[in-house]
């Protein structure tokens, strides 16, 4: 666990700089919702992983207001959300904290930041599989994720987690045949392409 004394300290004096807030309100999914934040910290106290984050969700929102663009977009906090919704149900100002964190992660990755490499690699393979099949193939996805950094790291990672695959296979919890795509895959791809262009962040 991180040293509590070392975390959450932003460099330099903190003053309000609206330029990054404006960017977040306009370009980040659910970004405008943080206008409601009153810095109470219920989200931070409810989060199962806030103790290992560099900045708690509350601090992330404060940093956005302070215009600390690179601190926010490179913070591992925005990619450590487990989507447990504890913060969202408890926020007295109804900020959908989970959705904002996801929006920030998506935006940061598009801007070239990679706050958490492994989750970024896995998540990208996950979405690629949806575009390819319309469904998730649980045996194929880990394999693609393991090998996304090359053959050597792929073999190493596969060996590390081989026991999991074997156990699942032996207990009939793995589909042995390759997953077939949904019948309407072409239409689905067309819809997702359009949504990607129409929504935040562009394609």
């Amino acid at each position, binding site marked *: 666990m991180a040293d509590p004394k070392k975390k959450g300290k932003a460099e330099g004096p903190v003053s309000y700089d609206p330029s990054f807030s404006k960017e977040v309100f306009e370009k980040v999914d659910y970004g405008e919702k943080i206008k409601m934040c009153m810095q109470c910290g219920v989200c931070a106290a409810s989060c199962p*992983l806030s103790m290992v984050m560099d900045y708690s969700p509350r601090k992330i929102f404060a940093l956005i207001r302070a215009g600390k663009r690179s601190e926010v977009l490179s913070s591992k906090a925005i990619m450590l959300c487990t989507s447990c919704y504890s913060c969202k149900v408890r926020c007295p100002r109804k900020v959908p904290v989970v959705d904002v964190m996801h*929006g920030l992660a998506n935006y940061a990755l598009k801007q070239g930041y990679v706050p958490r490499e492994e989750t970024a690699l*896995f998540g990208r393979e996950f979405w690629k599989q*949806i575009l390819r099949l319309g469904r998730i193939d649980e045996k194929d996805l880990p394999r693609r994720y393991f090998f996304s950094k090359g053959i050597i790291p792929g073999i190493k990672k596969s060996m590390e987690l081989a026991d999991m695959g074997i156990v699942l296979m032996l207990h009939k919890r793995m589909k042995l045949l390759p997953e077939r795509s949904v019948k*309407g895959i072409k239409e689905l791809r067309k*819809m997702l392409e359009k*949504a990607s262009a129409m929504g935040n962040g562009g394609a």
Partner: protein
Amino acid sequence: MKYFLYWGCSLEASGSNYLESIRPVSKILGLEFEEIDDWNCCGASISYIGANDLSIKVLNARNLALAEAQGGYDIVAPCSSCYIQMVKVNHEIQENEDLKAKINAVLKEGGLNYTGSIRVRHLLDVLYHDVGPEKIRSHVKKPLRGIKVAGYVGCQTVRPYGEYDSVERPISHDAILQALGAEAVPFPKKMRCCGSGIFLTEMGYCMNLVKDILEDALNHGAEIISTVCPMCAMNLEAYQHRINKVLGTNFDVPVVYLTQLMAVAFGLDMKVDAALDRNYIPPEVVLKKAIGH
């Protein structure tokens, strides 16, 4: 009662013991399930990495539109992640006409349209509210008497909407366990997160989350853990021995689906119906009091 069962990607693979046990149990309870033809993945809780919010909404709206055209029954999701993805999009479409128009403009590309008439529900909701503990009790042939079960609810099963149970102190899971004759042990971490979709990529952090949940359940006397989510089941069961190795613990506690316990209590076949042979940590030892050997 007729519903769509949207079982999702996991229940065909790592959560196959869930789907195998849902079928015979629902038959006994008179729940009629139909498949949404050509359903797609819900995007789970990790799709935001590769897709913007509108794409994820469209992905789910396609399933809602297909269900609406196919009969409009309630959609029942046994997977908490499928449930929350779909219920979230459904709420936002129902509450926001502009968003609905935007999504329908995209759905049109695939010849689809969604008016917003579908109700999305978790299997636990249907078991508790539509069937009810009393009816479940009436089908029990081998009560799970004397078996101490931790009814792990997890996160997305009731959060964030709390449509059918409390988001802080849910009772539905325990009420069904009690109807089966089991003792539902209270444990404070029943709502704490298991790490969900980032467990695999953030194992260093998430193993501690699972350790805390398992310890809490065991400290409160649990002999077995019951779940209603394939992600919870996977993280709580399949990583136990890895956690032992890394964190120096000594876990070996069976993790089963609520519907597997129902199949056992209904006197159904342990293997064919309850699919207990698919569990990684064998639950039969603990369930022997009910099974009777």
